[in-house]
């Protein structure tokens, strides 16, 4: 990988982590239009699956520290998965 690409990745991941910090500490309250309309109707979610980390919370760590840890870890995981998939798809064509 070129130095230019490495620099871009470092800056980009840093910005992503800043987004996570802002998401955890400043913009964490979520009440989407869909939620409001569902509430008005009394419509209930009917999950068909129990996710391991429901609502972005580590079980037993329902605080901002846990949310930050989960947010940063997940962002890095998404980078690895995105990079890995891109690498496989890139190879397929070469």
């Amino acid at each position, binding site marked *: 990988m070129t130095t230019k690409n490495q620099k871009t*990745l470092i800056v980009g*991941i840093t910005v992503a982590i800043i987004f996570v910090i802002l998401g955890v500490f400043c913009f964490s309250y979520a009440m989407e239009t869909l939620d409001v309309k569902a509430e008005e109707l009394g419509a209930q979610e009917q999950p068909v699956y129990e996710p391991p980390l429901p609502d972005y919370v580590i079980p037993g760590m329902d605080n901002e520290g846990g949310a930050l840890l989960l947010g940063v870890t997940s962002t890095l995981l998404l980078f690895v*998965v995105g990079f890995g998939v891109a690498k496989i798809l890139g190879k397929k064509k070469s």
Partner: protein
Amino acid sequence: MHIPDGFLTLSVIIPTFIITIVFWAISIKKVKLSEQQIPMMGLLTALFFAAMMMNYPIIGGTTAHLLGGAAIGLILGPFAGCISVSIILVLQAFLFGDGGLTALGANVLNMGVIGVFVPCIIFLVANKALKIKTTTALFATIFISAFFGDLLAAISAGTELGLSTPLFGYGLSVAVPAMAINHSIIGVAEGIVTVILIGTLFKLRPDVLEKSPILGKLAMLKDKVTGSA
């Protein structure tokens, strides 16, 4: 904009899954990624996952988040963009329960297909018609493309919910305008963020944009890359 389990009827779930699977198959078959784009796909996938964690207050006490489809699609192309946004949505559903599994087809259709392909198509048509030559025209076109990507994704979500009566009691006449009006505000934010991101790459890494099947068609970008080489 993530639709949970229990809000969509089978008559909406099945067609949305079929359309999504068709787009996944086409995207995997057609995607082309250069050496520079491979790490960029990882980066943009992570960046917009993180961006989706920020919920902006909009109107009436509601919030909304960025989709990222416009930026990813314009930078990497619609096929890589569709795959990248799908990775985010699949992991959000399976790890965090953000978006239902039965609604995964609808969520990918809204955010990963419409949210990605619409901005790319608008940009290509505008560039063909206007032959974009100035940065002002470029940024205006990017803004409009991103805005309409979000707006149409929201209208699509509203349509799916509106067609899912009685599970989601509001019909099309309530669900579509509610989603469209509120999400048009986040569409403005999506437009601004997309312009900032692509504007920064245009200035600092035009070589990355040159490889884009969408932005790479800009004559002014080719001139910039040739000029800086």
